[in-house]
């Protein structure tokens, strides 16, 4: 072994050892700061983790871009909705007066809110872009109660890490971390383009998460659960999306 070759060998060894130690340390730090998504296992897990961690470090408090009234899409695309069932029709016939959004989990004051109560909360309006994994997108004006306000109202515990939200369509449920749940633009929305939220777009209540893809914006929500562990829901991947092969974190 020549002098140069030995030096190279030693350098390589030191770099590899530092790398391995660094990775272990990084994994611990990432877990501590909540940078590991619930779907971190599996074939795409490393990629999901890298994307989520990088975006949480760089975009934790960034605001989704807001547009002018003139940029609102003339014909927003209402995606296909599976048949909504008898229970939905019954509530719809009653003008959604009996619709309730239950809030439970790690909260001091669990409860259930009617649509009218949610409309009485301080409201927020935004003109933002919604884009689907399938490719279509549109800009609309959304009105709703900030999720952060509801979390404060029910006294969400400080150590909570996720908000799980479920729909009257039981196969479509999602969860978001606290960075998105407490984000000022995340709304429990009930209005669209200066009118009521149409049923085709998720009325009476739709979760609006403008920094993530369309499928995180669950329609017909009726239950919020505040939790520090999403492993106990469904297959333990955080939401219905990763169970179907999509990413849990859809900031993409």
């Amino acid at each position, binding site marked *: 072994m020549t002098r140069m070759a030995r030096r190279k060998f030693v350098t390589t060894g030191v770099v590899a050892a530092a790398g391995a130690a660094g990775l272990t340390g990084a994994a611990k730090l990432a877990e501590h700061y909540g940078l590991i998504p619930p779907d971190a296992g599996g074939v795409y897990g490393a990629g999901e983790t890298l994307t989520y961690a990088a975006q949480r470090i*760089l975009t934790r408090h960034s605001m989704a871009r807001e547009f002018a009234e003139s940029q609102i899409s003339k014909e927003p695309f209402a995606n296909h909705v599976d048949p909504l069932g008898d229970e939905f029709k019954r509530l719809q016939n009653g003008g959604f007066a009996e619709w309730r959004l239950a809030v439970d989990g790690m909260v001091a004051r669990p409860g259930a809110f009617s649509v009218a109560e949610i409309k009485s909360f301080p409201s927020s309006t935004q003109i933002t*872009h919604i884009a689907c994994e399938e490719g279509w997108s549109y800009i609309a004006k959304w009105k709703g109660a900030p999720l952060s306000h509801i979390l404060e109202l029910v006294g969400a515990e400080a150590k909570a890490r996720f908000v799980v939200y479920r729909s009257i369509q039981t196969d479509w449920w999602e969860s978001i971390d606290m960075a998105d749940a407490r984000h000022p633009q995340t709304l429990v929305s009930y209005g669209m383009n200066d009118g009521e939220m149409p049923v085709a777009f998720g009325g009476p209540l739709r979760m609006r998460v403008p920094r993530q893809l369309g499928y995180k914006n669950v329609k017909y929500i009726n239950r919020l659960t505040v939790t520090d562990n999403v492993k106990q829901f469904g297959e333990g991947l955080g939401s219905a999306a990763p169970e179907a092969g999509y990413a849990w974190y859809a*900031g993409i």
Partner: protein
Amino acid sequence: MSPAVASAAPLAVSILGGQQSARTLHFVVSVLLVLFVLVHVFMVILAGFRNRMTAMITGRVREGVEQA
């Protein structure tokens, strides 16, 4: 295009003419990249796959076996 990255760096979207234009450009450029790779791999095969791969990895070329 990433809604979260667009929130942090809206200029990146504006430069590409908006989200849908960026998407179209992405498809065109990705197809061009794939074609680029296919053409170049084909050229390596034409020039002698083993010798070219050895040359790329070790920097050594066996004399007298160059075909192109």
